[in-house]
């Protein structure tokens, strides 16, 4: 992945230099250049939008405070003074409104939650009691902050307590505070860097989408081809069998977040599939897998083949295999595939999977939860295609319905997700946050439509986006984005039909589109070259004389077109 350097503003009530150093030196994508704001100037930094750190267009900001320094009422509680909870929460609200004001200055704001050093025992056995306990109050403060910031799409709270837990005793050292005003140990900052970067990758659509799994000794214990499905280690009164079941359950839970599963295994397909179908303790069945390649060929080749079939980029893939030789082979052959080191001990499989920081996404949509089902139905569609004579006959047999929707609060989340994740059928590969998109479409001369596609096998959800900028008597197609799930199903032509119909209705003369090449969007150029638009090679641009209509493909039906267009 091209390692674009990001600018990050660090605001805190402790010395941020150590954190900045860890952030700047970490080699994982994205590389970061930190801008450290003066020590303990949080309020000044948040209230003054004209400061250089904000006007320099940073990509994101981390605003990290300590509860006893940002909240005076809480500081008094630490001195065992009697302070009402409402006073503490009032100060939390004030702080939340300050954070709210930062949201327009940067694309993303990251706020680590408040923690206290582990040596702070508070009231001991009374510490979790309401209206008394310090820990109880701190939990309420964090919760209140989450609630107050929940409606701001580009502000994310990260759980500091998890970093503290990972690091243990070295998380706090009073000497660092007294001598350097450093609030945490070095390892806490390293953990924070990993989570901050993971969040950034998720927001920018770089999270992983597909886990490709080996079978023998990965999903179950033993070699199924040697011992038969009845004798593999899976479930039962067996601690190893139980660990495999738990690992499968964890994988299945990830599918509810929209992560796809696939199989690449060296096995006899019939034997392996029999185990998946028949073993009573298999948690993952065939319908849980978007696709599989079970044969004796090279695994790297099989991964390439499967990924092409699923229309997912190799950079979105995680490969899990118990065999270090296979892992090394895939790493060597496919350097964009993420191949985590895998524990030898099966009882650590689940924790190894849960600790991967590559699945973070800024939101979970309805489509995410349905994604595996969509791929399984896609398999069924393909089976149907094999029985049809021509592509058009196949497309007609699908009974496709396309619903055109303007952008709205209901579909904004999914639109932004599709916008930032799509690489192949993407005219300009522009990226926007939720806030930026809401701002862009709010301009009078901008239009953006979503395309929801369904067929007789099911609802494919929002799969297409087209946007238009009106400049005098001409229109410019700014974004032309289509999910690879429906590429080649004439949705491309339907999107052009809609935008041309609209442009004609408001009496524009000409429509333009400029293709911005990337390493991945050649399929988009291929489509546009065959779209009927005139092509000007010098500028990579396409144009359409709006005197002419554009033909709607006859293999699908547009529902509610007229009332949705304007």
């Amino acid at each position: 992945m091209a390692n674009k350097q990001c600018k990050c503003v660090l605001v805190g009530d402790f010395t941020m230099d150590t954190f900045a150093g860890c952030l700047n030196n970490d080699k994982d994508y994205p590389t970061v250049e930190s801008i450290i704001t003066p020590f303990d100037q949080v309020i000044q930094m948040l209230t003054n939008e004209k400061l250089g750190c904000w006007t320099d267009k940073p990509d994101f900001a981390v605003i990290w405070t300590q509860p006893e320094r940002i909240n005076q009422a809480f500081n008094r509680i630490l001195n065992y003074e009697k302070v009402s909870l409402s006073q503490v929460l009032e100060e939390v609200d004030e702080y939340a409104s300050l954070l709210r004001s930062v949201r327009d200055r940067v694309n993303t704001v990251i706020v680590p939650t408040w923690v206290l050093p582990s040596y702070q025992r508070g009231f001991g056995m009374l510490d979790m009691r309401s209206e008394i306990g310090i820990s109880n109050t701190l939990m309420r403060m964090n919760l209140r902050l989450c609630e107050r910031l929940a409606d701001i799409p580009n502000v994310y709270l990260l759980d500091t307590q998890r970093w503290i837990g990972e690091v243990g005793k070295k998380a706090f050292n009073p000497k660092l505070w007294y001598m350097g005003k450093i609030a945490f140990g070095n390892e806490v900052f390293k953990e924070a860097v990993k989570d901050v970067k993971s969040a950034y990758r998720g927001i920018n659509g770089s999270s992983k989408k597909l886990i490709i799994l080996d079978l023998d000794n990965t999903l179950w214990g033993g070699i199924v081809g040697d011992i038969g499905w009845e004798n593999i280690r899976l479930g039962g009164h067996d601690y190893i069998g139980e660990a495999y079941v738990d690992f499968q359950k964890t994988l299945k839970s990830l599918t509810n977040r929209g992560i796809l599963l696939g199989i690449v295994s060296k096995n006899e397909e019939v034997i392996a599939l029999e185990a998946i179908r028949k073993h009573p303790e298999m948690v993952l069945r065939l319908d849980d897998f978007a696709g599989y390649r079970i044969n004796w060929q090279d695994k790297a080749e099989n991964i390439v083949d499967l990924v092409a079939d699923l229309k997912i980029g190799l950079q979105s893939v995680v490969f899990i295999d118990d065999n270090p030789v296979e892992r090394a082979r895939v790493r060597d052959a496919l350097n964009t595939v993420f191949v985590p080191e895998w524990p030898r001990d099966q009882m650590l499989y689940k924790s190894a999977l849960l600790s991967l920081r590559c699945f973070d996404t800024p939101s979970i949509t309805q489509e995410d939860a349905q994604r595996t089902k969509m791929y399984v139905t896609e398999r069924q569609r393909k089976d149907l295609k094999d029985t049809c004579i021509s592509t058009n006959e196949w497309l007609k047999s699908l009974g496709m319905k396309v619903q055109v929707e303007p952008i709205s609060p209901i579909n904004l989340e999914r639109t932004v997700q599709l916008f930032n994740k799509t690489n192949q059928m993407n005219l300009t590969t522009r990226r926007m946050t939720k806030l930026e998109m809401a701002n862009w479409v709010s301009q009078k001369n901008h239009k953006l439509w979503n395309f929801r596609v369904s067929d007789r096998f099911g609802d494919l959800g929002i799969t297409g986006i087209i946007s238009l900028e009106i400049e005098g008597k001409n229109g410019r197609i700014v974004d032309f984005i289509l999910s690879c799930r429906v590429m080649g199903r004439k949705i491309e032509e339907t999107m052009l039909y809609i935008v041309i119909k609209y442009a004609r209705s408001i009496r524009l003369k000409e429509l333009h589109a400029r293709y911005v090449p990337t390493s991945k969007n050649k399929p988009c150029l291929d489509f546009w070259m065959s779209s009927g638009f005139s092509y000007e090679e010098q500028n990579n641009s396409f144009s359409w004389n709006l005197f002419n209509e554009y033909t709607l493909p006859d293999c699908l039906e547009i529902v509610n077109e007229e009332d949705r267009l304007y």
Partner: protein
Amino acid sequence: MKVNKVKRAKIIELVYASIETINGQRSQDYWLELTEEVCLRGKKSRLDSLGLVTLIVDVEERLAIQFGVEICLTDEEAMSEEKNHFANVKSLVDYICLVLEGKQNGQ
């Protein structure tokens, strides 16, 4: 009892590990070399006062884990610019050995 050569070598390795940690927090232009002569304090040092504090605290933590002894390298005696125990890695290691010997002798 004097700290033997093997133990001294282990302490040097430990200080180098701390330097590597500190390097990880700093721009490459300011990285410290892993040599006994590298300056930790003074005009020739690439470390600022914050870097020195972080380094010394890290060394303390590692000594506690590796040798099971709580050694204070941040008291006034240790930090004294006059005595300059932190002039370079060699003087730091000498000072650690001195404190360890004192501990072993029950001082």
